[in-house]
């Protein structure tokens, strides 16, 4: 920071400009998300603040859009689909991803760089490209318009998150500890469970949260490959926005914001725990 010599008026103006600019930027980042929350309690079917809302008239607020989420299966079915697909994909991604990260972190791993690049590639390929390829490939296999097809696709997108977060917890891991465990009579499974698992657990949980969130928010694959039976929450919101935008969507959005907040807090909490765990030996 350059506060030490804050004397010239020009500097002071620049300093204020900098602060004002940053405040505006933070508002730009967060306000569009927060503005949806009060609007979802609007008693009227409008997407803007009514005069009553601005006067904080309790009459102007209601829970009607939350009730309409539960009416019929317009939103409950997609929510169930999203959960089924998201949880299944997360389980596959977490098991495969955590194992792969353990292998990659091992000093004896052959071809680490190229294998890492391969495993990360689904995450960094634009989804539109992967989506077109998956549409052709899974259609040929008869997996288009099935839950399985979408779960496989989401799992392969989610696995890199697990690989990255678990690898991060293993950075600087002292592998002689594992040999010590073996020498003391632990078989590899016991050594893993007692030594490595507690260490990587925060990374496994963070990674699986990332993977779940990625699946929970994924739309391109669902648009290309999903049929009526595979309508997920994002797919339903997509139709909601394009066809008949009803304020129910704001209530759903608020629910998703709360979900984001919870996921984010958990990951940050785990990160801090991991960071203070003193495992960053390297």
């Amino acid at each position, binding site marked *: 920071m350059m506060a*030490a010599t804050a004397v010239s008026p020009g*500097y002071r103006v*620049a300093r204020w400009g*900098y602060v004002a600019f*940053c405040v505006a930027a933070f508002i730009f*980042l*967060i306000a*569009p*998300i927060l*503005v*949806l929350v009060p609007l979802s309690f609007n008693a009227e079917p409008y*997407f*803007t603040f009514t005069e009553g809302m601005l006067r904080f008239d309790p009459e102007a607020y209601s829970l009607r859009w939350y009730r309409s989420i539960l009416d019929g299966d317009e939103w409950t079915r997609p929510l169930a689909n999203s959960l089924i697909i998201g949880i299944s994909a997360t389980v596959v991604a977490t098991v*495969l991803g955590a*194992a*792969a990260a353990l*292998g*990659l972190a*091992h000093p*004896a*791993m*052959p071809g680490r*760089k190229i294998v*890492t*690049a*391969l495993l*990360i590639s*689904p995450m*960094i*390929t*634009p989804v*539109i*490209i*992967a989506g*077109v*390829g*998956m549409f*052709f*490939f899974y259609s040929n296999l008869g997996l288009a318009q099935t839950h399985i097809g979408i779960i496989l*696709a989401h799992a*392969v997108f989610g696995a890199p998150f697990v*690989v990255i977060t678990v690898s991060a917890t293993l950075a600087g891991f002292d592998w002689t500890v594992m040999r010590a465990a*073996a020498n*003391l009579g632990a*078989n*590899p*499974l016991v050594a893993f469970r007692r030594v490595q698992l507690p260490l990587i657990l925060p990374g496994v949980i963070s990674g699986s949260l990332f993977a779940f969130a990625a699946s*929970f928010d994924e*739309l391109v694959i669902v*648009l*290309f490959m999903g049929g009526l039976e595979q309508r997920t929450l*994002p797919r339903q*919101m*997509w139709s909601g*926005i*394009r066809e008949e935008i009803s304020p129910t969507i704001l209530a759903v*959005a608020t629910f*998703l914001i709360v979900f*984001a907040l919870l996921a*984010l807090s958990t990951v940050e909490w785990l990160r801090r725990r991991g960071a203070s765990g003193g495992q960053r030996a390297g």
Partner: protein
Amino acid sequence: MTSQESPSVGQPPARPLWRRALGPRLRAAGLALPLVAFVSVTFLGPMLSLLTKSFHDPEVADALPETMAALRGWDGQGTPSDEAFAAVAREFVAARTERNLGRTANRVNRVASGMRSTIMGSSREMVDAAAAAQAAGVEMDGAFWRETMIAIDSRWGGPEPWRALEAAGQRLTARHYLKALDFERGPDGGYQRAPEVWRIYVPLFWRTFLVSLGVTLLCLVIGYPVAHMIANSPPKRANVLLLLVLLPFWTSLLVRTTSWIVLLQNQGIVNDFLVAIGLIGDEGRIAMIYNMTGTFIAMTHVLLPFLVLPLYSVMRSVPPAYMNAAVSLGATPFQALRRVYWPQTLPGVGAGCLLTFILAIGYYITPALVGGQSGQLISNMIAYHVQTSLNWGLAAALAALLLGGVTLLYVVYDRLVGIDRIGLG
């Protein structure tokens, strides 16, 4: 993988040297193998079928095998042999009777427009002609069909429809790529650049590139001071500020897009506010969404965290002592910023910008929802060809070209930061 180690204390029992050297390698590789196999099947498989589809198109060749065989020896001048007339007639009449000629006609039409109506129109009359000839006991040989087809549609007497059939019947073909680069078939069968007003894809690639570049620069301009402020705040405040960046990062893309619609639409909050404070009249509401402005604003909002987070982690490691030293040696704060601070943050700037740009270039959902007509990008065209026009070869070629561009950028990224060092926030 779980070969039992000896439980005795000290060295495990002697094993052959090659096993001792290979064992840990195999175990490590074995752990990674399931995911490698999974990614190969569920991800590389699709990528391979994307690339295959972009230059392998057997549909017309499979639908009209005899015609293609008969056209093989043709020199492309005048009309082909009588056998070709006979073959095409047999296959048209058969397909027409089974009602599956339409698909083939559509495929040929993509090579030369107008061919659909030529094929469908002629084949209808050819079915009638065949029935009449059979009733009259006339032998339907090549000469008969040559005469009949040219009588039905004089175009069969020239080379153009035959060249179109021949081109559409190529199994391995560059035509999807040529189309994706705005080349079109000339009357002589050769490819040339389409007239400027008819070019679609190259301008769209160019627009996508420019929009991505613009969004990336805008993110940098906004993100640089933001990352600087977070990196230089006391820990408690830094955590709160970081949360303000991470919440949008974690919030559903659909939610963020919805909120921009709510804010920016004609009867939206921003316009309502501007009218209420009298800055614009009720008729003067600004069109901020369903156009390029909407795409730009929403994309910047979505991508900003991807630039701030890598930048922040680099800035956090820049020691403040250098700036203080520069200032105490007489540099103005601005000079110190430009000559001392900025160069030290360049790795973060490079990594963040590249990542943001790569993400922007493949964006689909946001432009589709808030872009209107003028805010569409190449990804929207790819989706259109997958879902609506069903021209999958072209969709594959467009996606493959985009993939080529992205891969190129990742090679740069790899040189700059290392592909295996992509982090998450």
